[in-house]
């Protein structure tokens, strides 16, 4: 015979991919809904399907966490089945579920089912990315979810801001992905390998620690990941994209994209580049300082609430890169713990902004959010709790997260970075409490738009999502021990 009839395929561990597959399945079903059903039915059907898929994926990820005590490479080492990926998938699915609830009443004239399809597909890509163990899978899944997000940002075609946001994200994100790809190519060129562990072995075996191609490749990969994590100086797109995108999408991006990017960064750096630890810890420390400075100083002058929250998320990229920069096991636990309340707070704060936006019909600024605390006490209290959490004040998980991050950095010996973090926290208090002030201490000035109909719209789904996120934010302050244990097992798959 001229050709061999059997192609050797690797063994596929379907269970390891189950979160991503569930979400992809839901995405496909939503796309079918988009063509098979009447427009009015599309939104609710696809919302239910996507919500159900997120619940299913959450459960699958939890089972995966339970049943993967030791990290194993699967599918020819393209991805790894371990607790780190499972925990990150749990966080992403939780954020996704909350975002679906917030999007229940989203004001989209068209493409409603496609919206949910894209949301599910993006989350699927993220769940896949956190398990990636080679550069090709990394790039594949990165592009997978990024493209879904580019379209999601632009999906509200009625708003010019939305189209602009999508375009900016596309261009800048494409640029970042190109950097990442080129850096991967350089690393492959230097070591001849694409698997993370293989790269580490090849570096050690070939004495490539100071090889120019390798270091340049590492730098470009870091830059590409920095774009995704919205760390300064790769943060340019964040304020405009967060402001222009539909608010539930912004909430999802703030929570899930950051989780994905940071978990991946930690896995990549510790698994593939342990020899260059000296270099990348210092590089990350510099990025942390830049993010803290730019994020906090930029947020001080914002009047639009979504932009302020965008700059705050840049500064949080800084706070959450600190434990990675510390490069120790305590840092690994700190990051995984911090992501839990952080995701909850991000989704909840953008949810409250979305509620106000739907009430008013205009972008929410510090002036027109005034008085929300008295008009809608639950949402006001939730936003207040989120501001406390972002600021790192007690009674929220954000305090514990920051405390752990600072402890990890101190443990590494960098007291100066702790001081920088403390100063940044002090600066951030001004704008977080500025929002609390607007909620409770200002009268709504010039609010001549009397909402026709009197009462603000009752949105059960959004309020449920906010309540769930609030429970996680405050609960993670009290239940630190169980969450840290989860984080510890997850971080144990990495070698520090």
């Amino acid at each position, binding site marked *: 015979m001229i050709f061999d009839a059997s192609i050797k395929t690797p063994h596929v561990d379907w269970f390891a991919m189950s979160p991503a597959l569930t979400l992809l399945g839901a995405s496909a079903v939503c796309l079918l809904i988009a063509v098979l059903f009447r427009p009015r039915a599309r939104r609710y059907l696809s919302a239910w399907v996507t919500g159900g898929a997120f619940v299913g994926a959450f459960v699958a990820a939890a089972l995966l966490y339970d049943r993967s005590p030791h990290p194993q490479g699967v599918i020819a080492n393209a991805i790894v089945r371990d607790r780190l990926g499972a925990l990150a998938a749990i966080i992403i699915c939780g954020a996704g579920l909350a975002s679906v609830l917030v999007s229940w009443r989203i004001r989209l004239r068209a493409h409603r089912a496609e919206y949910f399809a894209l949301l599910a597909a993006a989350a699927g890509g993220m769940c896949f990315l956190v398990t990636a163990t080679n550069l090709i899978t990394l790039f594949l899944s990165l592009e997978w979810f990024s493209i879904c997000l580019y379209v999601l940002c632009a999906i509200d075609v009625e708003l010019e801001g939305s189209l602009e946001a999508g375009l900016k994200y596309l261009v800048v994100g494409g640029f970042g992905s190109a950097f990442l790809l080129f850096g991967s190519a350089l690393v492959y060129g230097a070591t001849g390998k694409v698997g993370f562990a293989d790269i580490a072995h090849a570096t050690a075996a070939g004495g490539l620690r100071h090889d120019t191609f390798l270091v340049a490749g590492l730098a470009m990969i870091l830059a590409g990941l920095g774009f995704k994590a919205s760390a300064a100086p790769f943060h340019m797109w964040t304020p405009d994209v967060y402001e222009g995108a539909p608010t539930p999408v912004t909430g999802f991006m703030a929570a899930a994209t950051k989780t994905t990017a940071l978990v991946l960064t930690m896995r990549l750096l510790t698994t593939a580049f342990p020899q260059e630890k000296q270099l990348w810890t210092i590089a990350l420390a510099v990025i942390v300082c830049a993010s803290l400075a730019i994020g906090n100083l930029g947020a001080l002058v914002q009047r639009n609430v979504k932009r302020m929250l965008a700059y705050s998320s840049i500064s949080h990229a800084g706070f959450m890169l600190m434990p990675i920069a510390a490069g120790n096991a*305590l840092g690994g*636990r700190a990051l995984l713990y911090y992501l839990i309340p952080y995701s909850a707070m991000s989704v909840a704060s953008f949810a409250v902004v979305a509620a106000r936006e739907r009430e008013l019909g205009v972008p929410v600024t510090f002036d027109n959010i005034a008085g929300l605390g*008295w008009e809608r006490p639950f949402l006001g*209290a939730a936003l207040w709790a989120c501001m*406390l959490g972002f600021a790192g*004040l*007690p*009674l929220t998980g954000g*305090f*514990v997260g920051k*405390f*752990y991050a*600072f*402890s990890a950095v*101190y*443990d590494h010996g960098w*007291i100066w970075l*702790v*001081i920088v973090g*403390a*100063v940044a*926290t*002090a600066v951030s*208090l*001004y704008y977080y*409490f500025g929002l*609390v*002030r607007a909620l*409770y*201490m200002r009268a709504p000035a010039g609010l001549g738009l009397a909402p026709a109909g009197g009462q603000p719209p009752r949105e059960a789904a959004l309020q449920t999502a906010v309540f769930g996120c609030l429970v996680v934010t405050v609960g993670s302050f009290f239940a*630190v*021990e169980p969450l*840290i244990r989860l984080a*510890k097992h997850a971080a144990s798959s990495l070698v520090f």
Partner: protein
Amino acid sequence: MANGWLTDTLILLPLGGAIFIAIAPLPRLAAGLVALAVSLVEIAFWGGALSAFDYRAGAGSVQLQDTTTWFGDLGISYHVGFTGFAIWLVGLSAVGMTAAIAYAVWVGREHARAYFASMLLLTTGLVGVFAAQDYLVFYVFWEAMLIPLYVLVGVWGGPGRLRATLMFFIYTMAGSLLMLASIIVLGVSQGSFDMVTAGYSGSNWIFLGFIAAFVVKAPIFPFHGWLPDTYREAPAEVAGVLSGLVSKAAAYGFLYIAVLHFPDPARNFRTPIIVLAAIGLIYGSLLAFRAPYIRGVVAYSSLAQMGLITFGLFATNLAGFNGAVLQMVNHGLISLGMFMLAGLVELRAGTGRFDRLGGMAKGRPVLATVLMTLGIIALAVPGSSNFAGEFLILTGVFKSGWGWSVVGAIAIVLAAMYMLRLISAVLHQSRGSAVSDSARDLRLGELALLAPIVVILIFFSAWPAAITDHTFQQRSSTNGLSTLSDGHVVQRSCGTGCQIVELVRP
């Protein structure tokens, strides 16, 4: 420990009350009455804790403890318990917050549920600070005090409240973040954050980090920039709580953490801190004498008194400590009472300015009596509890150098001057332009608020040993340390003219 539930109840009862009031759809008066009921029950539990505390075991011993693991891997636990002197401060907080809540019920506040929930949250924070036996728990409760205060002053305050809260917030957070950095360094390097089992630290920097938070909160000159504006803009009872109760958290921090856990750095930095306290004492008294309105006098006198208390604490001998704790309780009650009186006068006359007040004694005997009594106790007339406190403090400081006692004595004279000026300007002389015939005397409800404070002060005037005999026993020992059970605070000499105070360790 057997009675650890008492400590947990004291901390969690106001928190539970706050959550209930915030969620349940209570009408305005009901919310206030529920809050008042919760505070009265809190006082009852405090009485139980006081009787459960065994003073023979040594006032520095921590009793009524409760421990639960919080972060296992960093050695942080939820560890609470009371030392002998902390119990008096908890009692002061319970009584003080009850009086403030009763004042708010009497006067009426908008958005009542949010207001009373914030007051109860503040109570939790205060009690928690005094009960914390783990550094991180201490920090959590310290910060937990800040949030209700921010809301209380920012929502219900006067016209300049936004700027006042901003200053207050920035000052306090700057200090708190330095304290957080110190806590992290201390805890991570020692491997444990527990106050009871961790050893002493000799690090000057960590000590300074803690001091930064305490000098801002007390406040100590020159970190008192937030004081005049915040006390002027806050609602009257909140200003009373700030000056009477929250500042004592700072003083407690000085005593329990700074002096008793860092004996060597405390000795190194004693002189600069005593100098700052002395400056604050004189400066505050002089400014109080010049202040043109009631709240100004009480605010600056608060700065002066906190300077005096710090004087006593950094004398680092048992007389100084005893005097300082007694003075903490006294000043708490007096300044709360004076701020409430100032609020009541402002309600009647529409202003607190002396140039428009005067002659209020005529036809208002109850007001005159209460104000005179509080004022005379405040200026430390011999026979009052304030006198006992100040005498003990000056005795303690005298051992460090007679010059300091002279400064203290001058301050007492200045206190007499500004208090008598206050009393006279409000009550005596000719009737002010803002005082009209329709300004009523103190009504029964208002008297019910103030009378308990006056009665307690008179009780302590008759029997100051109730506190001073139950804080630090006068015991000095050079080589008898092994015979004392741990938790005793002893005084040891470390050379000529040098004294160290230490907690006996297991």
